[in-house]
């Protein structure tokens, strides 16, 4: 058995990036972990069995705590039981996930709530003052703060401007989300809380899928719709 394990072709991390589609990053991490265990035990099969035992990809995971916006990811979150018995969660391509969730929310024609404005600002890594400046030079920092705390409602024009800013800023990190500026311009934003105060915004549902870029290279990207 050991001989069989040794005959496995060596695959470099670079090759894995090109060849492996869906779980590229997870595979690279897995390979590194595997190499560590292999060195320690000298038994690849035992190491593989051990990895399978302690690691699984969750079919569905609520990633809201990671993102700050209501988000559910499918077949991507990796749950592990570490050696110390502690359970950990890892989300591959985290910056891309944050960007995709923000762009996806901006394209949803439902009024933005204060915590969502705050989450989007944080995903763009902007302070209150930075966001005020980016929206309009006349916008005061205090105004943005009041929007976030819902002490003052955001006007329709300002909201569209914010959505546009978020999408333009984050679109490069969210190639799997279909977006163009006219989608924001044509958005008919509704306010469901007027008729239903307990309305819950539907979460952004994201899958990590291979995506072919214009250059022809295949990358992994967070996608809104499941492709069969």
């Amino acid at each position, binding site marked *: 058995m050991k001989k069989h394990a040794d005959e496995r072709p060596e695959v470099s991390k670079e090759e894995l990036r090109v060849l492996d589609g869906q779980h590229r*990053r997870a595979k*690279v*991490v897995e390979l*590194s*972990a595997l190499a*560590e265990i292999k060195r320690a035990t000298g038994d690849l099969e035992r190491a593989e069995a051990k990895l399978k035992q302690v690691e699984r990809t969750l079919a569905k995971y609520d990633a809201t*705590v*990671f*993102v*700050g916006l209501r988000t559910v990811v499918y077949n991507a979150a990796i749950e*592990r039981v*570490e*050696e*110390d018995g*502690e*359970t*950990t*969660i*890892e*989300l*591959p391509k*985290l910056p891309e996930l*944050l960007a995709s969730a923000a762009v996806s929310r901006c394209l949803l024609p439902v009024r933005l709530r204060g915590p969502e404005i705050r*989450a989007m*600002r*944080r*995903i763009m*890594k*902007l*302070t*209150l003052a930075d966001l005020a400046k980016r929206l309009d030079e006349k916008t005061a920092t205090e105004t943005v703060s009041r929007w976030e705390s819902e002490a003052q409602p955001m006007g329709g024009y300002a909201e569209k401007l914010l959505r546009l800013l978020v999408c333009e800023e984050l679109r490069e990190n969210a190639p799997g989300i279909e977006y163009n500026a006219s989608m924001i311009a044509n958005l008919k934003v509704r306010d469901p809380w007027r008729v239903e105060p307990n309305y819950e915004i539907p979460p952004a549902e994201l899958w990590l899928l291979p995506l072919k870029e214009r250059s022809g290279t295949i990358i992994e990207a967070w996608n809104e719709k499941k492709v069969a």
Partner: protein
Amino acid sequence: MALPHYVTETQILRKIACDPKCSLRFTTHALKEMVADGWTADDVQHALMHGQVVLHEQKQDVLWRVEGMDIDGGRIRVVVAVYELIIRIKVITAF
């Protein structure tokens, strides 16, 4: 009294946290603490990229306590285990 500043550890931490290949693993306890304090993964990452190591503990793993700022400039402390060779950070807790 000034906090002890672990220069080498801070340099290693920042280098790994800034690496795009770095995988961040969050313990379920850390996620609970983040929810309680209103922090997201971005805040923790920001603290790791810009904060400094102030405490070094030897438990089952070598743990570093990092003091930094969240994106809004609020103070955040994160306890992490850093795996330099495999470019991985395990976030044990945040407070």
